[in-house]
């Protein structure tokens, strides 16, 4: 994947995450601030475990993963959109309450 494609990936991620977080924020009343986008291309397990490790070291062993499908009128994009909130994030109080 070249630089332009990676940059496009980052922007798609940025837009998707921002709109998703806006809805989540509206529904929960918590303010949620996304970090700048980053692109990693590697084995899925390597990426997810590294993110999980970073989240889990000082916090709970439990992670919340929200799974999503992208589609519009004429196509479904083969992609996964996973949200792994930092356990320290305000939003976790909302999930804990559920």
């Amino acid at each position, binding site marked *: 994947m070249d630089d332009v494609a990676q940059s496009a990936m980052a922007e798609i991620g940025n837009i998707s995450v921002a709109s998703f977080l806006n809805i989540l924020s509206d529904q929960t009343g918590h303010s949620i601030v996304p*970090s700048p*986008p*980053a692109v990693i*291309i*590697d*084995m899925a397990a390597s*990426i997810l475990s*590294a993110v999980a*490790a970073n989240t889990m*070291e000082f916090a709970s062993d439990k992670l919340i993963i929200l799974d999503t499908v992208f589609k519009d009128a004429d196509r479904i994009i083969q992609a996964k959109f996973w949200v792994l909130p930092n356990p320290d994030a305000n939003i976790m109080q909302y999930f804990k309450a559920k």
Partner: protein
Amino acid sequence: MADNMRSVSIGQIVVSNSVADVLVAYGLGSCVAVSFYDPQRKVGGMLHALLPSAANKNSAPDNPAKFVDLGVPLLLEQVLKLGAVQERLVVRICGGASMLTSPGFKNTLNIGERNVATARKVLSQLGFSIKAQDTGGNSGRTAKLYVATGEMTVRTMGQKERPL
């Protein structure tokens, strides 16, 4: 003989004395895999640990094999139970990459680096020297240990398996 792939997932220790077995840790990112092998008895074992130490946890860990510091002694115990002899054990480590290096990731904890450092420390405290290692870098790895021969291989994305 068909290889019998036995996945060693995160927080798991798998030991074997069955020569058809291949112990595989898929997609090691910042995780580290430690492998022991007794060439005479053909006993092998692999640990796939996520975090360096359980010391940062408030409570006793539900699964010690998730941590390098607790997992390595457990791995040793289990290969010895299968008949391996400590003095003969061939020790290799693999993994511990820094996956989250882009500027979007703030406050990451160098877990890969610390996993490897902890593995080296614990192994040296147990009196082992490391025969081979493939650690660090920024790419994920898949590590395999062939119980029949004691050969170990490492593969990164888009590359062929290479011996470790």
